[in-house]
Structures are given as structure tokens and as C-alpha cells.
């Protein structure tokens, strides 16, 4: 849903970032307004996942230039947990297994951290169980997964459902979903996409990071961005994704070759 008057939730300007002194992002510009669904597409190594990790505050990534404003405030000055509490959510491409930590307790601690930041009452064990059972329906997840350790022994599809369950509980304002479709069969993809569609609304924004058109058959983006060599090469509507599907990424390489890359400034 594109509304030019909708408030800007996330504003990325000239973002440069590196990991282990290796520059990956070379000036990303992107604006997300409330109600919008954006898709970032691109080849492996184009910087898509780095962008998502930088936004979430992964300690291995260093921002060397540029800025990110989250609802007008400097996002990069915040710890990862502060970003999450304020409503930024990263759905992991490879959700982490944490043996010995109960999924239910993890979900409750996380939900309460977010609720507290919003000024809502924290939920006790019983109230939380009611909430989580209701939200399980968003991803049609078996309650048995609540009693297991976080993601431990979950199949790829179960892990992704667990990610969307977390999103349903945390009610983010900006959800970044990194390759949420990878490793999913058609049924799991439909369920996960259904969950994302259900949670997308006029007050929040979604950033889908994906390789393939097939996720975008299930979730219709308002904007599609093509990323290459650490920046956004082209932006268009959903038809751009179809064009990519049809023409592949080779034209991206040609376009890149015509580009004179600007020197990267390392702070």
C-alpha cells in the first residue's frame, strides 16, 4: 500500500558497511514508509543479507559511512536489543538453534521486553500462554514446538514458522525478512507468506530479501529493488521482479559494467 503522506519508518542514506575490513555495502539508499512492502532482490554476495544484519545491529558488521534513521532517530546508535524493543525485527535466513533454552520461555522474555518498551503490561506465564496459542494460528504451528529448545531439531520450515511466530508476538513496525523463502516447500511457503500478509498493515513496513520471484507471487510488493555490488541498482514496481525472473541477472552485470564505481571511503 503506497501512500505518499504515510510516515517514514526507515530511512537509509548512503550506507557503507564492512565485515572483517572487507567493504560490502557501497552506499545504499532506501526509504520505507508505513504500509509499504519492499522486496530487495539480487544475487548471492550482492549485499542483501549484510544490509539486513547491519540494520539489526550484528556486531560483526561495521558501518563505515552513511546513516539510518528509524522513525527519525539514529538507529545505528542503538544496541541490537534496543532496536528490537522499538519495533525492528529481523527474520533470520538461518534461525539459530539454542539447546537448553525453552522456546516458550524465550518467546515470553522477548515479548515482554517489547511490551515493556511500548509501555504495555508484562505478561505472566499464564497470560502469555493464551497469547502464544492465539498467535500460533498465524503460522499453523504445532504447540508442541513451544516445549522444545529454541529451534533445536526443527526442520527448515519449522524454523521459519517460528520466526514468523516471533514476528506475530513482537508486532514490529519494520520487519526485515532475510530469505524467508529459502528451504521451504510449497506448503510451508504458503503458510509463511500467509503469516507475513496477515501481519502486514497500514502502520508497519516489510522488507523482503529474496532471490526468487516465487515469494513475491505470495506476497505482493509495492517496490522491488535490485541490489548489486553493495548498492541498489534499480528500483521499480512488482513488474521488475517479473522482469528479473524472465531475463535473469545477466543484465545486472552489464549495467554494473557500465557503471564507474565510486571509490569507497573507509571511516
Amino acid at each position: 500500500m503506497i501512500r505518499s503522506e504515510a510516515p517514514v519508518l526507515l530511512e537509509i542514506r548512503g550506507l557503507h558497511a564492512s565485515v572483517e575490513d572487507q567493504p560490502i555495502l557501497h552506499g545504499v539508499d532506501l526509504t520505507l514508509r508505513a504500509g509499504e512492502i519492499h522486496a530487495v532482490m539480487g544475487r548471492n554476495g550482492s549485499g542483501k543479507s549484510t544490509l539486513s544484519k547491519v540494520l539489526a545491529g550484528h556486531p560483526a558488521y561495521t558501518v563505515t559511512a552513511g546513516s539510518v534513521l528509524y522513525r527519525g532517530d539514529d538507529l545505528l546508535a542503538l544496541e541490537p536489543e534496543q532496536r528490537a524493543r522499538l519495533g525492528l525485527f529481523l527474520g533470520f535466513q538461518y534461525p539459530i538453534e539454542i539447546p537448553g533454552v525453552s522456546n516458550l520461555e524465550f518467546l515470553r522474555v522477548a515479548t515482554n521486553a517489547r511490551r515493556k518498551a511500548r509501555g504495555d503490561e508484562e505478561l505472566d506465564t499464564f497470560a502469555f500462554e493464551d497469547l502464544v496459542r492465539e498467535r500460533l494460528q498465524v503460522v499453523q504451528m504445532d504447540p508442541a514446538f513451544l516445549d522444545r529448545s529454541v529451534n533445536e531439531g526443527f526442520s527448515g520450515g519449522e524454523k521459519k514458522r517460528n520466526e514468523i511466530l516471533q514476528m506475530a508476538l513482537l508486532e514490529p513496525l519494520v520487519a526485515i525478512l532475510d530469505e524467508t523463502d529459502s528451504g521451504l516447500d510449497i506448503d510451508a511457503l504458503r503458510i509463511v507468506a500467509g503469516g507475513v500478509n496477515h501481519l502486514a498493515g497500514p502502520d508497519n513496513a516489510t522488507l523482503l530479501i529474496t532471490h526468487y520471484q516465487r515469494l513475491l507471487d505470495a506476497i505482493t510488493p509495492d517496490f522491488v529493488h535490485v541490489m548489486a555490488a553493495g548498492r541498489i541498482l534499480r528500483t521499480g514496481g512488482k513488474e521488475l521482479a517479473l522482469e528479473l525472473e524472465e531475463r535473469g541477472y545477466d543484465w545486472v552485470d552489464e549495467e554494473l559494467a557500465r557503471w564507474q564505481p565510486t571509490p569507497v571511503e573507509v571511516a
Partner: protein
Amino acid sequence: MLTAPLDTPRAAGLAADAWSAALLASLPDPWAADAPDVAGILSAVRRRGWDGLRAQPLPSRRQEAWRFTDLGALQAVSPSLLPPDALGAASAWPSAAPGTLRLRLEEGPDALDPQSLPAGLQPMGVGEIEQALGQTLATTGCREHWPVLLNKASSGPVLALRVTGAVSTPLELVSDAGSGSGVLPLRLLLVLDPGASLELMQVHRAAGASLTSVVVEARLGAGATLHHGVVAEGGPDAVLLAHLAVAQDPESTYTLACVSSGWGLGRLEPRVVQIAGAALTRLRGLQHVGGRRIADTHSQVMFAGPEGRLEQVHKVVAEEAGRSVFNGAVRVPRAAQRTDATQLSRSLLLSDRARVDTKPELEIVADDVRCAHGATVSRLQQDELFYLQSRGIAADQAARLLLRGFCEEVLRELPPSAAVWHPLQMPAGPEATAR
């Protein structure tokens, strides 16, 4: 350095090192006509201990079994029996879990009121003790180990129990050396009849410069089940030397969950023999070590017959300048075909100054067996921390969750009656969250 008192010439010549000599000198002479005794058993045991200490000096790091474990902490322990009035007061303990029978281990058989023992549990008679005492130490090959000899030399009465059926009341045995200095010898003998079962919690506490010396022998008859929990929490000057010797008949199940923390020096030696194989042994160990302390587990499981199973997990949390040692021996001779054994050692290093030495020691002669082992030493995983943080959980709380998760695999195997002791409720130190 301690020297033996000069006015005890007999003792001075009795042991191969000064500390042991001073200890022997302080003890009643087991050869004396008026030595305290239970039908001759006690004196005989103590004489064997004296003879042993005469021949064997305190273990040094030149010996393979003690290569990483320095017994230096003993030098601060008074070489004499811990005075009874120095024991920690039971009133300072948490209440026992409802329905649990709690006994003070230091009191030995005096702790028993035969009238109030639950069905299936009975004190052993002198003849039975005489027959069974020391058998399992011999079977498991640790009769001549220095800590066992020390225990024998200073030994008091033995708490000896026979389990004749399924005991529904959990048994809890507690020792508390309080803040005094000296040696606290504890000895337990358990015989489980075929098909019998028992849930046993063993708790050791010490605050002062004391040595808690523990020798447990458990003999499991065919089909018997022993669920054995150990929670040992000591102070920075306290020493714990414990041997847990277990002999299993076929179809029996022995589960040990052993959690220790805080001791200046703690050494646990679970030693299990499956006498004719075909039994199940489950060992779960967790040791937390910080300060400049040493935590050591030397385990040995021996399959003397075919089709035995072992599931072993040993976990370590080492912080500050703590040192952890794990040596896990598994012996599978030719007779032990179709043995199925797994051993996993996982250590968490929370500081650069902590040290972990971990060594699986698999000796496999039989050819048709499954023996898997693995050892990892790691820090708190950055990716796990970040995942929790990315869900709004603060770094220090995330570290605590991960630490607890790490320990949980062992803690959940403790008998339910252990919960009142709140084993290992450690705060995550600042180093745990540093990055």
C-alpha cells in the same frame, strides 16, 4: 610445609609425605587394643589405609592421573579429623523436599532410625558389611587410589544400606563440613537387590579449609535401578575428593547426575563396571569453576561383558582463572561385543585466563561395537547471543539464558529432590557478556 610432630615417632615413620604423616599422627592408632571398632571391620579398614599411606605419598603432578591437578590446596587443610562441633548446622540448610528422607552422612549408621526407614530400605548387618565392603572398590580398580586410602585411614563408621525393593521415598544424604578445618571422611555402602530401585541425592557442602573425603560403593543387582544425584558446593579453600564406585549386573540402570561448583579443589571419580555387560550406565557431569580453583572429573566405565550401553555427557563452565580437568576412560575389552557407548564433553570457556583440559580415553578391543565420542571447548556463541538480542533480550540476560541452557542438560537429570539446593545458581559474570 607441615612437618610431623616429633613426639609421635610411630606416625612420623608411617607415611611417605609430611601431611599424611601428620594426619596419621593425629588419628587413633588402629592397632591399639582400645581402637574404636565395629566388630573388627573398622580397624581392619583403617589398618589397610595406614599401610597404603605408608607406601604411597601424596599424588604429584608427575603421575599421569594427577598431571593437571595439583593437590597443593591440601596443605592449607589441618591434618587431623574435622572436629564434630565444627560441622555446618543443619538448620542453615533448605528444608528437604516433601516426602524425602534426609540423613546426615557424617553420622554414619547413627543417623538411621530403623523404625522410620521406608519400605525396601534397611541397614545392613555386620556380617553383610564385612562381606560387601571394599568389593566394588576392588571391582572398579580403585582400592589403592590415594584418596581411597586416605578415606580408609581416617574412616569412621560406614553407612551401609540394603535396598530390597522399589523404594518410593527419595533418600537424601547430606554432609556439611561447615567453616572448620580438618578431614571429614564419609563412607557409604549400598547394595541393591535384583529389581530394587532407589532415588539417592548426595549433597556435600564445605566453607572452610577442610577436606571432604567421600567413598561410595554401590552394587546393583540384575534389573536394579539407581538414580543418583550429587550436588557438591564448596568454598575456595575447601577440598573434595570423591570416589563413586559402581558395579552393575545385567539389565540394571545406573544414572548419575553430578553437579559441582566452588571447591578450591574438587576431584570426582565415578568408576563403573558392568560386570557382565548388558546394563545401562548414564553419566551426567557438570562442573563450574572460577577464581583460581580446580575442578577435576576422572571417570571410568568398564564393560566386562557384551551389549552394555553408556550415555555420558560431561559439561564444564570455566571462568576467571579456573582450571577444569576431565578424563573420561571407557574400556571395551574383547568380551564386550555389541557395546554401545557415547561420550560427549562440552566445555564453555568464559575467560581468557581459564583453562580446560579434556581427554577422552577410549580403549576398544572388541570389534563389533559402537563407541562415539566428541569434545568441544568454546565460548558463548556470538550468533546465539545476537539472536537473543535481536529479539529484545539484553546482552547480560541473553548470556544468562545461554549459560542456563548449557547447564540445563545436566541439571534436569538430577533427582527432583535436588531442587531445594538450587544447584549452580550462578550469576553470569561480566566476562560472560564481554565481546
